[in-house]
């Protein structure tokens, strides 16, 4: 069925900052929206050094677990100012921040998935993106029943996908390699 071979990925390189950032990129939802929370984190390399030349992108459901997209057969509800997509380059300290609404549970083929955010990491030194998922620490029961989390046997590895509370928002660090290495997915 797939007759046309796909185009290979290449690195974003060291000059991604001129091409990828958007002024409103970090705002997956408009500032001042009730319920908006910051997700902040730092990207680390295999030596524990921060990665200042990465871009984080996030994609997620709305608070009802729906997507404003033709392939969500349920259709979208209206959340004014909610784009569901965030993009933030890392700063000199390897830090990023995305302002968003917490997603709802998302149906899967055999029941619900826990609320989650799909996260892409692009960087100089990475020939393709890596993909991970962010889950929420207060969703203990939903996380325990989540089919993706359940597929990760090592509890320490599974824990890398759960953000932690930080102030009014969350912290989600990404470790590309080595101790505490984030779980990345074959997408």
């Amino acid at each position: 069925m797939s007759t046309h071979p796909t185009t290979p990925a290449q690195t974003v390189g060291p000059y991604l900052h001129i091409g990828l950032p958007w002024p409103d990129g970090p705002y997956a939802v408009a500032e001042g929206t009730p319920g908006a929370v910051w997700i902040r984190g730092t990207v680390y390399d295999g030596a524990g050094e921060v990665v200042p030349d990465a871009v984080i992108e996030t994609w997620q459901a709305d608070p009802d677990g729906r997507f404003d997209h033709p392939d969500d057969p349920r259709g979208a509800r209206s959340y004014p100012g909610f784009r569901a997509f965030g993009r933030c380059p890392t700063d000199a300290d390897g830090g990023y921040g995305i302002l968003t609404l917490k997603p709802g549970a998302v149906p899967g083929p055999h029941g619900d998935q826990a609320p989650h955010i799909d996260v892409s990491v692009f960087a100089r030194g990475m020939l393709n993106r890596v993909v991970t998922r962010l889950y929420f620490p207060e969703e203990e029961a939903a996380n325990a029943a989540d089919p993706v989390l359940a597929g990760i046997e090592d509890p320490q590895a599974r824990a890398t996908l759960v953000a932690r509370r930080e102030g009014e928002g969350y912290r989600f660090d990404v470790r590309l390699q080595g101790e505490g290495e984030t779980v990345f997915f074959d997408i």
Partner: protein
Amino acid sequence: MSTPPDAAHTQPGLYVPGYVRDHDTHPPLDFPGYKSTALRHPKRPLTLLPHMLTEVTSPVLGQDRVGELDHDLTRQHAEEPQGQRIIVHGQVRDSDGKPVPRTLVEIWQANAGGRYRHASDNWPAPLDPHFTGVGRTMTDAEGHYRFVTIRPGAYPWGNHQNAWRPAHIHFSLFGRAFTQRLVTQMYFPDDPLFFQDPMWNSVPDPKARERMLSSYDHDTTEPSWALAYRWDIVLRGREQTPFESEEEILEDDE
């Protein structure tokens, strides 16, 4: 739209067709020839993620993301940039051959002398005050995109002794699904620098490398104005077409 708020929790499963996996196409994350991969590749094997709703959707971005002159990198300043004016165009399709319409295409590139307008790029080639090197456009209803720019120069970098990047333009594409997201680079035909370039050579299959190569397109040149290159981009296609489960869900929803 009369669905109760907790409908998502009471539904049975929701099956959506996924996208083909195209591992054979892409470079490995660990590629010693590109030294910076050493500390930036995961050592644990990747975990298979089945494609569910989050993975088969993506932002539906509109024309509002694109400014009037974003597609023409030669008209973003008071005067024209130095260099060879070129048209870069092509079609975005999926691996079933279907066009990908109304999707955002973003590009960035060095100037004609091979210098990026970036604080970290300080090799001794001049900046061009009339060139930023950033473009955006949406594909049309048939998946076609078109930029006007100048041909970027090659530039040296520190990866190995006397290392030079072949001329290239960075491309970023969304497609219509999270799985289709692609960041890549477009190259020019007959570049003599490929043999020593780890980016180009990181793609294992020589035939796949060729898919990063644009072709000179005389039919699209504009007489006394611009040369042209064509580059078609292929994103991952669907594993299978949607079927009746969608209707079941819609019925449940009512």
